């Protein structure tokens, strides 16, 4: 394993010191990788590694993401409700007229179809075969003057090629998902270091929803992150917790809109009751953690406390469709005991008080500190670092900016060897940044993430994507990374010199073996693929 010798001067923030290993930590462990071209990222990171990472934290609202066309959760809800109604009517009309199958555009592509495909273990080859038009070899050439030179102009390198198979038009859910994904990818491609974006990704995965839950979840995956996560990544944990648990996307993902107080009016009328899903995950995954000192009774209590937390539906009976509402009719009446505390029934405030208490619980501080250190530093983070982060979290009332700064100020976070593998998201984004790509179409990135097992905003369960090395440094995963690197290189290597890119991304932190492997590659394509797969590019 590589050893890390970081000059003491650098750790004390001496701006004159230049330390390439520390630059690698700044860029890769905390950021999204050096950008290519004239960004100067590596040089800037090497001259003041800590300052380079911290600079982003001082930008007010630096985590917020606004882009033309991105809409609020209620506005998106109204679009998806209208779309679903249209689909339903089309199906009914088809049934009435005796058509056996609904028209093709009525297929619920974003949810059920996706789920089915997710379970199939497609190989690259098979996928390529399925995606290729069977007769295209016989199609007349579109060898017009415009595309005759397409192969040679760099601007075209990232664009889809001619003769694409015809595709059915995207529905509003697919369009929205792609627009949200594109906005996130463009932000990630643009930022200097990317530490704030890494924090967004971390918290978004901590409080994950899955777009595979259904049309609403896919529609809201991006707005959930923009509205519930981003405003708070440098704010207070308690505020993020409340924003998350009251967000329609989370309420839908973990079924709370179906949960009725058994003794509430709605529960009595419909003879239905609690759904504990959200309450359990709040304590197990979002705050206290397994073994964090809660019991089944506490789960049930919290479930009762947050009954009535829902969102207004299509018909708008409870409010503007798609907004969070407290439905008193569904709320379990009476006081509840949770974690030894008694919460009077004062409507929505009962649950807000309970969340406020849980957010400040010592188990939450420990759970969050451990996950935070595990994500950035190592699978088994140094206990002293975890303890320090825990104390900062507690003493600052869950100030997440203070938590981030405490991590950056620690020596451990800079000295730990780079044992973690970049997640697929970090890998594809870092690749695009190094090759100076500004995504105009999210397809390649989304396709790569799907193949590598980290489909955007679509983890398999509410525990999110794994954050340990074993999950990503797996045999098939590494083979697929190599295939993707080779594909990227076959498209983009013609106009770059991989030796220059090595200097931009790794500089003199490159091992002699890596440098030699790249210099001795037999083509630019091979050299670029090897650079993207080098330990210096893959590890952080």
């Amino acid at each position: 394993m590589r050893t890390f010798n970081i000059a003491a001067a650098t750790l004390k923030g001496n701006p004159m010191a230049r330390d390439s290993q520390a630059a690698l930590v700044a860029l890769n462990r905390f950021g999204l990788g050096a950008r290519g071209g004239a960004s100067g990222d590596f040089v800037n990171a090497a001259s003041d590694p800590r300052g380079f990472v911290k600079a982003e934290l001082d930008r007010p609202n630096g985590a917020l993401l606004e882009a033309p066309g991105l809409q609020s959760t209620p506005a998106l809800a109204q679009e998806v409700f209208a779309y679903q109604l249209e689909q339903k009517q089309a199906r009914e009309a088809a049934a009435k007229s005796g058509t056996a199958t609904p028209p093709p555009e009525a297929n619920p592509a974003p949810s059920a179809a996706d789920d089915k495909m997710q379970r199939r273990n497609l190989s690259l080859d098979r996928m390529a075969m399925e995606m290729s038009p069977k007769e295209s070899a016989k199609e007349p050439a579109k060898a017009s003057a415009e595309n005759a030179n397409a192969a040679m102009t760099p601007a075209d390198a990232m664009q889809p090629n001619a003769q694409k198979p015809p595709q059915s038009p995207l529905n509003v859910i697919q369009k929205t998902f792609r627009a949200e994904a594109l906005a996130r990818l463009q932000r990630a491609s643009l930022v200097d270091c990317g530490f704030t974006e890494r924090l967004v990704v971390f918290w978004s995965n901590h409080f994950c929803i899955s777009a595979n839950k259904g049309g609403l979840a896919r529609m809201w995956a991006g707005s959930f992150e923009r509205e519930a996560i981003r405003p708070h990544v440098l704010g207070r944990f308690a505020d993020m917790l409340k924003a998350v648990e009251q967000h329609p996307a989370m309420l839908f993902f973990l079924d709370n809109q179906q949960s009725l107080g058994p003794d509430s009016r709605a529960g009595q009328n419909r003879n239905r009751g609690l759904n504990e899903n959200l309450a359990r995950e709040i304590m197990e995954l979002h705050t206290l953690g397994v073994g964090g000192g809660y019991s089944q009774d506490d789960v049930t209590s919290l479930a009762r406390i947050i009954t009535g937390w829902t969102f207004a539906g299509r018909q708008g009976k409870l409010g503007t469709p798609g907004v969070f509402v407290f439905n008193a009719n569904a709320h379990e009446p009476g006081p509840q005991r949770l974690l030894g505390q008694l919460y009077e029934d004062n409507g929505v405030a009962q649950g807000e008080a309970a969340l406020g208490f849980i957010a400040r619980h010592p188990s939450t501080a420990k759970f969050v500190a451990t996950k935070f250190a595990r994500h950035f530093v190592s699978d088994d983070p140094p206990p002293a670092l975890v303890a320090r982060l825990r104390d900062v979290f507690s003493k600052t009332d869950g100030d997440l900016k203070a938590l981030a700064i405490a991590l950056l100020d620690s020596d451990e976070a800079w000295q730990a060897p780079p044992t973690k593998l970049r997640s697929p998201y970090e890998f594809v984004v870092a690749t695009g940044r190094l090759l100076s790509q500004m995504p105009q179409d999210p397809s390649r990135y989304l396709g790569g993430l799907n193949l590598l097992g980290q489909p955007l905003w679509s983890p398999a369960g509410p525990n999110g994507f794994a954050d340990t090395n074993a999950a990503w440094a797996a045999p098939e995963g590494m083979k697929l990374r190599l295939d993707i690197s080779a594909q990227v290189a076959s498209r983009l290597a013609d106009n770059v010199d991989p030796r220059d890119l090595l200097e931009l991304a790794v500089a003199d932190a490159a091992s002699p073996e890596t440098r030699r492997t790249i210099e001795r590659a037999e083509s630019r394509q091979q050299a670029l693929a090897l650079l993207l797969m080098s330990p210096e590019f893959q590890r952080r």
Partner: protein
Amino acid sequence: MESPSKATTMDCPESLKSSATSRRSLLLGGASFAAWAYLPKFARAADGRDPRLVVVILRGALDGLATVAPVGDPDYAGLHGSIALTPDGPHAALMLDSFFALHPAMPEFARMYREKHAAIIHAVATPYRDRSHFDGQDVLESGFAGPGRVQSGWLNRALEALPRGDRVTTALAVGPTTPLVLRGAAPTVGWAPVALPQAADDTAMRLVELYSHRDPALASALSQGLQLDKSAQGDDMKPKPGTNGAGAMRLVARGAAKLMAADDGPRIAALAFDGWDTHANEGGPVGRLAQLLSGLDGALAEFEQGLGERWRDTVIVVATEFGRTAHINGTEGTDHGTGTVALLAGGAIKGGRVISDWPGLKPANLYQARDLAPTTDLRAALKGVLHDHLGLGERVLADNVFPDSAAAKPMKGLVG
């Protein structure tokens, strides 16, 4: 996450959706093909000649001493050691004359040579004298005297000098990359066996080697992943087109020949084959290089067969960025060198000859005491072909196609 999903949902990499002309093309790794988009006007010239020109680039540096072995040179066997070819024995090299012998993996080329439709230029090199693949390929393909000029290639600039006829109408998908030799202002079309679904075996081997030194955990994971992948493809003993360079070369050549044989098909094309960087376990009459040469041999045969009667007016030039060390290294391979061979094939070639001002392999005769010394400028041979086969003038060849190459006069009598 417990079970990472490997599936695709509604989004797939665009590269796999597009320009995939067939299942077969998707399997082809490490090869590319591109062609000029117009039929040259001279195709309708009164003499009925309708010349076709194919340039094949071998990326990675071909070992010229292993391909066309100077078995008559007293120093050859000692230098090439365990991988040297011999004129007798179980895998005897194919004697071309009393001095040079062809690698036994190339029987088709040997036949063309006997039929006087193939020739060899030995101890040849571009003007590039360092040993970087990238820079060497730049010089080979750009036609400039030094590296760093990657905007256009010499074949494209040669096309600019030709009278432009009708547009090629054969179905060609536009592929994402064109070899530098054919890049430039003259419009070209590419064919698409460049959509690589899988990294080449050679790239994977190099990465495993790097990981084994720097990151044993990744070395183990990747090795297992590669093994899994092979098993998933079924019989892992049988060579597959995608993982076997020889099969890929034949298939690309077959497709290219079919396109070029058509009356309205392209007349001038370039192909690039990867994988010639044989630092370790190069092999002698059998082995890694033998497999590659067998693929190249098969590719040439595919052109001959696929072009049919057009073969008569065809020239194929096979060139590489530089040669390899005369002395084998400590891993039964050869390192980057200088002088090497260029191969010429086609019915229009005045063949049956090894054209060489042989420098000898005595230590004092080697370039920098390690490489076959180059005695022929590759540009002279290429200029000779362009002059005799396509009718380009000496002036345009020296000024535009190969800038600053006036000293390398077009070699006469290669074509006719």
